[in-house]
């Protein structure tokens, strides 16, 4: 008999790919890591006691696969590509799009009515993922590692080869972009709808 959790595992794939992409920055490697993770997960599913959530368990397996692949990739590739950081954290011109010359919001953040209610709606999570996807590459990756994977800033800086202040700038920007995106695509719409 097929374990019903097989289908459930498959449902976590997009999350896992995003996670792997955050760590590996390479679509092909990320797919590979997720594939290996899912195979390992299916094999050890009978021993999964359900103490943690399925996603947490899958992520912990994926972590090991990612580290393996990172080691392999590192030996093939001597240095890490850093160009996207220069564009995303170097200057602060991007802030001028969000704040006027007197330092005020161009599009003031609105009060979001009962935001936690959104958690219960599947469409909210689609909007959330859509907004994550629209972040610039480094921003999306660093935000994911920091806020979703819960890595500490020090680890992220080391992995990404950036300074702490680079990291803060990238996160500041990512948060501003995410909040604007959700306001436009979720909270604005909900408010209008009723």
């Amino acid at each position, binding site marked *: 008999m097929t374990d019903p959790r097989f289908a459930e595992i498959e449902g*976590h794939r997009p*999350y896992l790919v995003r996670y792997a992409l955050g760590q590996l920055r390479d679509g092909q490697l990320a797919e590979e890591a997720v594939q290996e993770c899912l195979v390992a997960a299916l094999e050890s599913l009978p021993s999964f006691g359900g103490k943690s*959530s*399925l*996603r*947490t368990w899958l*992520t912990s397996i994926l972590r090991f696969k990612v580290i393996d692949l990172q080691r392999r990739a590192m030996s093939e590739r001597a240095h890490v590509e850093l160009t996207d950081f220069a564009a995303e954290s170097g200057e602060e011109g991007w*802030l001028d799009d*969000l*704040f006027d010359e*007197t*330092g*005020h*919001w161009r599009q*003031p*953040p*609105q*009060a*979001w009515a009962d*935001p*936690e209610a*959104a*958690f219960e709606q*599947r469409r909210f*999570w689609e909007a*959330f993922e859509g907004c994550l996807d629209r972040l610039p590459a480094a921003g999306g990756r660093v935000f994911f590692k*920091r*806020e*979703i*994977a*819960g890595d500490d*800033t020090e680890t992220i800086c080391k992995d990404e080869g950036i300074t*702490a202040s680079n*990291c*803060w700038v990238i*996160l*500041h920007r990512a*948060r*501003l972009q*995410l*909040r604007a995106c*959700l*306001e436009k695509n979720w909270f604005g719409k909900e408010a209008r709808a009723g």
Partner: protein
Amino acid sequence: MEKKREPGDPVDCRAASRLLSAAYERKLSPMESQALTYHLDRCFMCRNFDSQLKFLHAASERFRSGDE
């Protein structure tokens, strides 16, 4: 409704948003905290941003645990 930085307000919205985000990464200095509190007491837009950051943080946590 567009208000200028009040005399005595050490930070504008741009700087306040930076501090609000930084507070998730490091401990703010006493001066920074004080400046931020002063600004937040007077600026509802930045208070909204503060709430939104809390929301993003909570949403991210849910997303991680698959509690969607």
